[in-house]
């Protein structure tokens, strides 16, 4: 297959910075990007794609086709955790099955962003509404997960799901809020607004992404030790499910006539797993589940896989289908 694609993907500063961070941990250097710098970078990246996506929307306007994309996005965000749950139940108890399926039903903004700059390097682009799609895909999996929990798990009263808390965690978690807000701001302030924000939130984007991926590499590296504990079943799950999700996504994108760039970004959203929003929510509402399973899988298995192999792989497939 497009081995050159893989190479071309890896030979990018951002991806290499991720590997550099990974190596820093494996070689036991004391390199770290101390808090709250990672928060600074992730906040920056969220604001940047939000503002830019909103600006793009203000140019394109909200066509019917946009709605189509958004609906399919939500559809996948609901579908994935359901089938993921039943696959996981083959081997896992309900609590961990719920937590992991929710993790894979949601998305990873950084994977999305890295894919975006990959596309960008190929001189292609995607619609600003894909950012809206991403935002919509972040939360549903949490709710689905907890519905599955209440359906299948019998817990003593004192640990019944606190739906108020859950819905807040799901729909008002910081990243969802910032993305929605900045999308709106970008949309409202249009050309003029973007011109003012572009020097910081546009021009510096790739550099900041590279900087942040260095930290991602370190954080992922710290979890690599836990992969043993995860076991072969979940290891395989963490690699194969993303690919499967991506293919389902590509299939839908094709049948509903997405543009090429949108299809690619959509497949990435389906393939990626959440290591921030969902883990936080699961900790609160499913403490019985073991975070060193679901966090490790999302962060140390699926994220690196998507960054290094998934992105070029999904693009390779799409390139064939869309030609």
């Amino acid at each position, binding site marked *: 297959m497009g081995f050159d694609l893989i190479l071309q993907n890896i030979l990018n500063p951002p991806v290499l910075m991720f590997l550099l961070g990974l190596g820093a941990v494996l070689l036991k250097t004391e390199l770290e990007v*101390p808090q709250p710098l990672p928060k600074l970078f992730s906040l920056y990246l969220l604001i940047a794609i939000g503002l830019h996506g909103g600006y793009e929307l203000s140019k394109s306007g909200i066509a019917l086709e946009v709605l189509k994309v958004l609906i399919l996005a939500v559809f996948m965000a609901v579908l994935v955790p359901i089938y993921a749950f039943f696959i996981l139940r083959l081997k896992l108890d309900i609590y961990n099955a719920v937590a992991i399926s929710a993790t894979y039903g949601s998305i990873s903004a950084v994977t999305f962003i890295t894919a975006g700059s990959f596309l960008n390097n190929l001189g292609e682009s995607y619609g600003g509404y894909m950012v809206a799609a991403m935002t919509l895909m972040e939360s549903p999996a949490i709710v689905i997960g907890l519905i599955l929990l209440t359906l299948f798990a019998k817990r003593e009263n*004192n640990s019944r799901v606190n739906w108020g808390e859950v819905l807040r965690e799901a729909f008002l978690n910081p990243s969802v809020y910032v993305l929605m807000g900045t999308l709106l701001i970008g949309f409202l302030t249009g050309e003029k607004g973007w011109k003012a924000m572009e020097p910081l939130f546009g021009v510096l984007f790739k550099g900041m992404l590279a900087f942040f991926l260095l930290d991602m590499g370190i954080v992922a590296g710290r979890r690599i030790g836990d992969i043993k504990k995860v076991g072969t079943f979940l290891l395989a799950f963490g690699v194969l499910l993303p690919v499967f999700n991506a293919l389902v996504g590509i299939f839908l994108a094709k049948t509903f006539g997405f543009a090429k760039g949108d299809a690619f970004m959509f497949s990435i959203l389906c393939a990626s797993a959440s290591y921030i929003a969902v*883990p*936080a929510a699961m*900790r609160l509402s499913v403490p019985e589940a073991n*975070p*060193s399973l679901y966090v490790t899988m999302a962060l140390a298995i699926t994220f690196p896989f998507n960054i290094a192999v998934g992105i070029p792989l999904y693009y390779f497939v799409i390139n064939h289908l869309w030609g």
Partner: protein
Amino acid sequence: MKKVEVVIDSIYLSRVLDVLEKAGVSGYTVIKDALGKGERGIMAGDELTDVFKNSYVFTVCSEEVAYKITEEVRPLLKKVGGACLVSDVLWLMH
């Protein structure tokens, strides 16, 4: 007076504070970022997810209040882990 100290996963800090309020303490002090190790393994502080970080709280209160707190905190610790210490201190009236 009694000094009650609690170490717990940051994400549950608010629940501990609720317990203290309900028990009727006159106040409490929190140190947000604490790392540690216990039955549930190392809490080394995860920059990204904040999932593996502890918080440390202590309050000075009467013996009865301290008793109330421990009774309330025990089930929480049983469920999500953590540590709770009680010791004797002298509270400087002012």
